[in-house]
């Protein structure tokens, strides 16, 4: 009903699986709603011409019975730690250092790095979120009021790349040729505060907007389902007491002021 969120609206689209079989086109007489019909959520188009990729859904005629197809809703594909999918090694190291200051480790809970936030961001940028898939990215591009939202022609992936390069330049110029990774914790925090408050000027890009993206995506990585590569071992959920992907609290709704006793579970279950 009501939600307070940061002003910057950071959106994208869930990962699409590769295309499957297609159904009949949207004309009468080609009704096919039996097994074998696989559809995809998204119509992919360019500015004025209709171009369809292998992953786009096909028009369908539905008559007589409810359509049914396995995995019609494209279940998520699990992310595993491993080589960077989008970042260069230097970018990846910088992001790991950044997320570990945004969410620092403490004796109770790992920090952003060990929680997998950098892996999460890397995989998001390599996918449909990074490419701004499904968003309205046509010009003319103009700066508007804050109330009109982000009007940048940059995709999130391009924004990260540009901002990380500019950040590296800033750090080396300000801290005697050191990269962000090489700074002390206090120096790192000073840089991040500068980005947040708009005091650190990055060349060719807005440090403040980059900070907002980074903070939002880091929190996503800390609290999203572990299937996306962050929230490793559900550390974010355990820290706050969120049971995760459980789906039935009927026995608990009227047990007031009591701590829920069961450990969290994710979409893919849980390790133990």
């Amino acid at each position, binding site marked *: *009903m*009501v939600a*307070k*969120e940061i*002003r910057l*609206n*950071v*959106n994208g*689209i869930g990962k699409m699986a590769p295309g499957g079989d297609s159904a009949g*086109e*949207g*004309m009468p007489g080609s*009704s096919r709603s039996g097994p074998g019909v696989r559809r995809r*959520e*998204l*119509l992919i*188009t360019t500015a*004025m011409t209709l171009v*369809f990729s292998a992953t786009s*859904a*096909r*028009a369908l*005629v*539905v008559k007589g*019975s409810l359509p*049914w197809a396995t995995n019609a809703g494209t279940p*998520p594909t699990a992310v595993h730690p491993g080589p960077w999918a989008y970042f260069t090694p230097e970018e990846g190291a910088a992001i790991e250092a950044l997320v570990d*200051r945004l*969410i*620092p480790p403490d004796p109770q809970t790992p920090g952003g790095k060990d929680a997998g936030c950098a892996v999460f961001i890397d995989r998001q940028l390599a996918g449909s979120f990074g490419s701004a898939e*499904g*968003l*309205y*990215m*046509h010009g*003319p591009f103009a700066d*508007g*009021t804050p*109330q009109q*939202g*982000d*009007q940048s022609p940059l995709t999130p992936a391009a924004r990260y790349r540009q901002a990380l390069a500019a950040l590296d330049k800033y750090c080396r110029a300000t801290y005697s040729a050191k990269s962000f990774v090489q700074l002390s914790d206090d120096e790192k925090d000073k840089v991040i505060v500068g980005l947040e408050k708009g005091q650190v000027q990055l060349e060719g890009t807005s440090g403040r907007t980059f900070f907002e993206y980074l903070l939002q995506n880091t*929190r*996503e990585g800390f*609290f*999203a389902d572990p299937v*996306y590569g962050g929230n490793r071992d559900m550390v974010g959920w355990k*820290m*706050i007491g*969120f049971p995760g992907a*459980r789906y039935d*609290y*009927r026995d*608990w*709704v*009227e047990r*007031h002021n*009591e*701590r*829920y006793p069961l450990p969290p579970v994710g979409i893919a279950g849980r390790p133990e």
Partner: protein
Amino acid sequence: MTRKLPATDVVIVGLGWTGSILAHELTGAGLNVVAIERGPWRDTATDFPPAYAQDELRYRIRHDLFLRPEQLTMTFRNNANQTALPIRSWGSFMPPNGVGGGGVHWNAETWRFLPSDFELRTHLVGRYGEKFLPEDMTIQDWGITYDDLEPHYDKFEYLCGTSGKAGNIKGRIEAGGNPFEGARSREYPTPPQKQPYGPTLFAQAAQEMGYKPFPQPSGNLSQAYTNPLGVTIGPCTYCGFCEWFGCGNYSKASPQTTILPALIRRPNFEARTQCEVSKINLDKSGKRATGVTYVDTSGNEWEQPADLVLLCAFQLFNVHLLLHSGIGKPYDPRAGEGVIGRNYSYQVTSSVDAFFDDKIFNPFIASGSIGMCIDEFNGDNFDHGPHGFVGGGYMGAVQTNGRPIQTARTPQATPRWGAEWKKAVAKSYLSSYEAVTHGGCYSYRDVYLDLDPTYTDRFGRKLMRLTFDFHENELKMSTYLTDRLAEVVQKMGPRQLEKHPRRGHYDVTVYQTTHTCGGAIMGVEPKTSALNRYLQSWDVPNLFVMGATAFPQNPGYNPTDTVGALAYWAADAIVNHYLKSPGPLVQI
């Protein structure tokens, strides 16, 4: 090259709540009905099974169930002195896409409007005088009364199995319900949902202050229910993945869980999905619709001729299609003339955050419309004379979710990151609470929808342009409502309380509600409304337009119960009057 298809009796644009209801009623009357839906087919078992439906990132943060702005968006500005720019990703409201429409992802808060809401202008002028209203406020009576609509509210609620407690049955005030509501013909179909700790505390505090709290009417069902169509809905499990999500339990009222299983078996019904209607076609006279043109996923254009055209898309897209089809006179704010795009309205929401030391709220035990509310400050339920504004809203403890990306809150003074943020989140998650107000939004001369001069969609059509800002009346109302809410929350005994009334300019990036209204409103005369009291176009009598598009302004409630009731009201008029003698149902 548009290919022409065989004619049908009825073509429906959009297969959400109103499209499903009208398809069911009109196939029941023996007509052949074709529904054309822009998005995909969606159903519980195939699209949101409890194996992965509970995914905050995918559905809440990445907007998986919603229309892609690339497919269609609109431009936005606060006022006519600014240049409107595209809404490149959704923020303030979430246009639906696909079968079930907004009925898939709504909270299912199922409220009736107050009797005075339907005769708003007459009522307010009668009580306070013409001068009490702001000069540029363009509120109107609806052309129907609560009593006209009551049987249809009843029909929609019994279709949904709505869980609640009546406050007024045939004029008799019932303990435990909302004493301010209009008279109902009978009790809700199912009893209220169970209440978690927060709403229970809120209700105790409200009661001590002399208010009359009641459970919010809910389309997430308290128990299993079989509706008059023979479709069975399951009991809600309080999973906390409700609004923004499809329900994996068959327990949220939606077209999928109430109508479609019965409708799809009818041989005279057919749905075409992933097909986008680009235009309503008119004959040479411009007074009769001949059908619609739509585009399939290969880019092929089809013409579907029909005797009756029912515009059942989401509010914004109904207006967009009317503007593109040249039906009705577009609104001109300078002259104050024209009707298409006129009287856009929204919702004015606010919140109070409370932080406790000694309480465990378990915010994740939630449903889209669980909660305890009070209605003392809605509509004209209180004397506005001393306050200098009109309108109001309901308020209460509505526990919709504890999804952490979105709701892990910290006191305002906390840094947004770092060790202190981390500590505060860990401490506050279970022990803080957010209560809300849900206020109305009245209509104004300078708030409207028209076509943008610059930006186009993928068909090369001009995008629609939204010109909207909050007005002083609504901001005053929000401050007043938030103060009243804070008094109740204070009684719950928090360590710290923060008020967040709606302030400043309308911001299209911050989610508030998806209750966009108006733009082709119903009324008593063609000069000030696009539709007559039966939601029939004044200009094109074989076209009916459904949804919140018809609201002349927005009261302090969620729209869907009224949207459903109006669909049944219009269906009744079509079946019992229009079909017998096709033509205008209101003579002027």
